[in-house]
C-alpha cells in the first residue's frame, strides 16, 4: 500500500501530531523548569533573610514611633551637652535673636543636627520665645 491511504490506515497522521506535540510539550516544560532552577537556588541560599523578614514583619509595623524616639535619644547629645556647645554661639549673637540666625551660625560651625538640637533647646526652655519671633537664652537653666 502506498500514498495517503497508507498513512491513514496506519494512523500516520495521529502518530505525527501526537508525537510532535508530546516532544514539544516535554521540552517546553523542561526549559521552564531549568529557567527556574537558579531562582529557586537563590531563594534557598537567602532563606534565612527571607524567613527573618517574615518573622520581623509585625515588629516593623510598631517600630516607627519608637524608632524616632530612640534615634533622638541615642544620636543627640543631652540638653546639658547642647547648652555647653551652643553657649559660645549665643555669645556671638545679639539677644534677642531669630532661630534662623542661630541655625545659620550652628551650621557654619559644623554642629551636628542643628534643627533637632535647636528644637530640643526650645523644648527644654533654654531658648525662650519673646512672642515677636525672636528668642533669648535662659541663663537660669545652666
Amino acid at each position, binding site marked *: 500500500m*502506498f500514498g495517503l491511504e497508507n498513512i491513514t490506515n*496506519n494512523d500516520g497522521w495521529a*502518530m*505525527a501530531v501526537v*508525537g510532535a506535540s*508530546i516532544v514539544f510539550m516535554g*521540552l517546553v516544560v*523542561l526549559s521552564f523548569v531549568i529557567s527556574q532552577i537558579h531562582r529557586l537556588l537563590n531563594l534557598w541560599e537567602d532563606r534565612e533573610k527571607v524567613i527573618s523578614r517574615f518573622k520581623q514583619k509585625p515588629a516593623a509595623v510598631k517600630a516607627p514611633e519608637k524608632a524616632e524616639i530612640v534615634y533622638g535619644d541615642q544620636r543627640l547629645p543631652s540638653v546639658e551637652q547642647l547648652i555647653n556647645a551652643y553657649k559660645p554661639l549665643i555669645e556671638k549673637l545679639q539677644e534677642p535673636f531669630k532661630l534662623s540666625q542661630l541655625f545659620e551660625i550652628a551650621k557654619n560651625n559644623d554642629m551636628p543636627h542643628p534643627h533637632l538640637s535647636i528644637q530640643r533647646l526650645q523644648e527644654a526652655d533654654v531658648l525662650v520665645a519673646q512672642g515677636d519671633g525672636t528668642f533669648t537664652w535662659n541663663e537660669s537653666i545652666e
Partner: protein
Amino acid sequence: MLDLLFQFLANTGYYLADYRNYIMLVVGCIFLYLGTAKKYEPLLLVPIGFGILVGNIPFFKGFGIGIYEPNSVLHYLYFGVTSGVYPSIVFMGLGAMTDFSSLLAQPKLMLLGAAAQMGIYFTLLGALFFGFAPKEAASIAIIGGADGPTSIFLTAKLAPHLIGPIAIAAYSYMALIPVIQPPIMRLLTTKKERLIKMPPSRTVSKKELLIFPIAGVLLCCFLAPTALPLLGMLFLGNFLKECGVVNRLANTAQSAIIDTATIFLGFTVGCSTQADVFLTPKSLGIFFLGAVAFSIATASGVIFAKIMNMFLKNKINPLLGAAGVSAVPGSAREVHLMGLKEDPTNFLLMHGMACNSSGVIGSAICAGILWSFFI
C-alpha cells in the same frame, strides 16, 4: 591434491565475490577516505568504513563467520547493537562530555531543539507515503534527529533488518553537515537576520549544573519511559561529571568507555552492510528519506527561530535553529562558522551548543515516543 586445491580456491573470497561486494568495498573505501583524508567525523566513519570492508569480504556460508550467522564472533559483537547496549553506553559517555551550562543559561534555546525534531514526524509521513511498513517508517524517520546512536537504538527495537542502511544513512548525513546545512540556512535567512548578535550568557552555578541531570531524567523519563535506556544513561554520565566526587568514573565514561563502545558500534554496523542485505531498493529509499528528514529538521529549526523572533524583544539569530538537530558538535560548529562569515565578531558556538544538547534530549524523547507507539 588438485581437488583439494580447487576446493580451497572455491572457498576464497575472490571466487565467491560478485559485483555487489565490489560496490560495497568501494563504499567502504569512500568512508575511509572521507574519515581520514577529509576528516569528516573520523571517529565514526573510520570504524564504519573498515567494518564495511570486513563485512563485504565474501565467505562460504555455514562456517559461523558472518555477522548474521549465529555463534560467530561478529554476531556476538553485533549483539551490542541489536540489543541497544552500545547506543546506551555511547549516551553515557556523551553525557559525561557535555557541558549543559549554555543551555541552562538560555533555556528558551531548548525550543529550537524541539522544533528541529519536526523533521522526524514529516519523514514518518513521507516513509509511510512511499509504502514502508509503520515500524520501518518510524525507524527511517528518526534519521531526522541526526543522532546515530538514537537511530540505531530505535531501529534495533522496531526494524532490526534495516539497522545497516539506517545507521549508514544517519552517520553519512552527520558527516555531510558542512554540505547539507549551509545552503538551507542561507536560503531561509536574510543577511540582516544572520547578523543578529546573541548576548553573552550568564554564569551558571555549580548547583544548577548538578540539579539539571536529576530534573532532566525525572521530567523526560516520566514523560517517555521508553527513552530511559538513552536519557537515563545520558543524565547519569552528566551527573558523574558534574557531581565532582567521582572524577575517575567521569573520566573513564568520557574516554575509555565511549571510545570502546564507538569502536564496536561503528565496526559492527559497518559489518552489517553485507551486500546481499544492504544493496536493495529499500536502502535507496532510506537514503533518500534520510536526506529529506535531515533537511526538514534543519529548516524547521530555522523557521521556528524566525517565528520566535516575532514575539521576542531580544531577537535570536535564526541560524541557531539549524543547530537544533542533535549532531553534536557538527551543526553548532557549522552555525558558528556561518555567523563568523557574516560578522567576524559574532560568536555563536556556545549558543549553538545549547541548541545541540537540547536536540540530543529531544531526539531521544522522540525515539522513546515512536517506540511506545508500537508496544
